[in-house]
């Protein structure tokens, strides 16, 4: 991914199956472009995302992690995104304590109808992460070859 030594961030996006993953699919159907740096992992619900996954991603060299779920009140499982929201609030404040810039993590609500929003969010997020540069603070160098 390192073209001409230009920095390309590694971004992991967790998307819930019912809203955001479908929203990402819709972004594709509408050919709404966003950078290839974003890789999506499908989870059944945003509440399936263990804060551990996010720490793991940073440890393995991710530069930004975004969690997308259904809008509050619209969760397929009724309350899952509320749990996700609380857990992420806790995690993010801990990450900021550790010195991880606030911009590297994000929670966004994207419905299955919001393809354009998904693409716009990803563009914005990639821009933010690119500006922040490489994540060195949490990366475990032992994981690098």
């Amino acid at each position, binding site marked *: 991914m390192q073209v001409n030594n230009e920095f390309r961030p590694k971004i992991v996006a967790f998307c819930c199956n019912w809203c955001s993953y479908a929203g990402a699919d819709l972004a*594709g159907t509408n050919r*709404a472009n966003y950078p*290839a740096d974003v890789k999506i*992992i499908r989870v*059944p*619900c945003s509440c399936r995302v263990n804060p551990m996954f996010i720490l793991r991603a940073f440890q393995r060299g991710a530069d930004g992690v975004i969690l997308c779920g259904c809008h509050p009140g619209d969760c*397929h*499982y009724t309350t899952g995104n509320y749990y996700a929201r609380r*857990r992420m609030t806790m995690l993010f404040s801990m990450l900021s304590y550790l010195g991880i810039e606030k911009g590297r993590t994000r929670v966004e609500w994207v419905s299955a109808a919001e393809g354009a929003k998904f693409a716009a969010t990803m563009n914005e997020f990639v821009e933010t992460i690119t500006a922040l540069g490489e994540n060195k603070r949490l990366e475990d160098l032992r994981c690098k070859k």
Partner: protein
Amino acid sequence: MRRIGVFVCHCGTNIAGTVDVKTVAETLGKEPAVVYATDYPYMCSEAGQNIIKDAIKEYKLEGVVVCSCSPRMHEATFRKAVSAAGLNPYLLEVANIREQCSWIHKDMEAGTAKAIVLGRAAIAKVQLNAPLIAGESPVVKRALVIGGGIAGIQTALDIADAGYPVDIVEKEPTIGGKMTQIDKTFPTLDCSSCILTPKMVECAQNENITIYSYSEVEAVTGFVGNFSVKIRRKARFVDENKCTGCGVCTEKCPVKNVPDEYNLGLSNRHAAYIPFAQAIPNVAVLDKNRCIKLTKGKCGLCSTVCSAGAIDYEQKETIVEEKYGAIVAATGYNPIKIDGYDEFAYSQSKDVVTSLEFERILKADGPTDGHLQRLSDGKQPKTIVFVQCVGSRESGSSHGCGKEYCSKICCMYTAKHAMLCREKYPDTDVYVFYIDVRTPGKNYDEFYRRAVEQYGVHYIKGMVGKVAPQADGSLMVQASDLISNEQLHVKADMVVLAAAIEPDKSARPLATMLTASMDTNDFFTEAHAKLRPVESPTAGVFLSGVCQGPKDIPETVAQAGAAASKVIGLLAKDKLSCNPCVAHSNEMMCNGCSSCANVCPYGAITYADKDFSRRQDGSMIRRVASVNEAVCQGCGACTVACPSGAMDLKGFSTSQIMAEVDAICK
């Protein structure tokens, strides 16, 4: 390490246009676990599927990765193909290289690189996939309908017609609901009772239908196909089997001043009563709060006059327990309380009435025997003002009882009322103050126009600001006329307020029992606003009528039928196959802390003391969680809440997601 096969789809040029599929297949083919990798123009085609099936057999594949369109599109197709080749269908992963790669990227190099990463993530995940077998649970072939209004009646009749037994639980002493109180129905102006009563009778006579009147749902446990419901049958102090509905007790009862619910308190009934003449079941009830015998131990007159010997002062409420495969909520609505609107003088004047009260006044079995009369002095009103949107479409909190939604039915019933007034009493002046006239529906706008053009109803755009009772008994209505930009003062004899409707109060506790979700207005939420409008998100719970959102009678009946067909579809199955991607608890790690049960939205997690005693360690009994796989919907909230890591989600296990993260970040 498992033997993995990778299949890369071109999707014509949809994928191949921006992703170098050959390179993807070649690169992924070099991954350590991959024993076979190929590409093909259309993987989802018959030929494409055969490539997968043949490869599974030839290369003895233990896991399959298809790089193609979204799993939301063709995961099921590929699972079927994999299964046909003898491999567990859950040993398949789809890498989404179309919607989330080729379609959004223009650069071939970046697209190809991303597709490879997505493929690697899928390979890493499928390594850890467990072969899952969808469980089965039996279906109890009996349905429960909660609420005996037109919605519940129609649903029950349709289910019974298909040959399945169905029970109706109605909290009032009779079924029929709001429709029994209505005089005429729009847009055809046919008499409400005349079309409803036959359906009520049919319910009583249909051998597949059991009516639990004067009963309420007490508790619901279980899950789709296998609900267990406790129904509390309130004591009516009359033996339903003996009572012939002759009505002698209701005439002889000396307590005559109980507000009559059927007439919304506009007239009185006796303490022993039958709600109305066509009640089903046609059985008397003793009002336990007003009956002298039940409150003071004296009287007993009804018992002496009852020739059937049906009166039973000792009757106790009973609990019926029954199993059901499906439950339909049809709890209906009520007009909101409008006492908070001082400006309309509802609580000051008897001649300011709600539309449902007006309906009672117009109906032949109402407090005025169907004569249009003022309730204060019995005179026939010469000027009637109708006010629309009372409590509907309000964002304000000033009154505290307003609703933000449009109640939907008011425009039409007001047009009906206005028309009926002008038809029966042509010398009456009728004003309708409206904000918007909303009449979508077959023959609806024509109906409203008829009220204006044929019946000469004065429709005025503007809201009524104030109703002031005058000394002479009239009502001064002050309103704005927005079109002529004037403030109007109309001296009226009667004012009719189109009060907003709200879900019945019993709906919320019921939703809690059913673990069905509700919106902020206490309407039941449907599983999908467009595509699954009669199903609740909770499997096996269906919605009928206004409990899901404001509806008129035709819409309610249509939805009732739709809910019935969904129920019939469910009951027609002998067994339900469950989603195997559910949570499960590792009993050896579980410490019984209840964290998982606290976050579970479905109540799928239960605890039991389990004996882990081993001979060398002596006795050890621990409390551990277990997941009911038929109830669990697989959201995974519990997996994160579990502090000991005992809870995991099949198909999306912690190790699988970690493997994906690792592959992506590599």
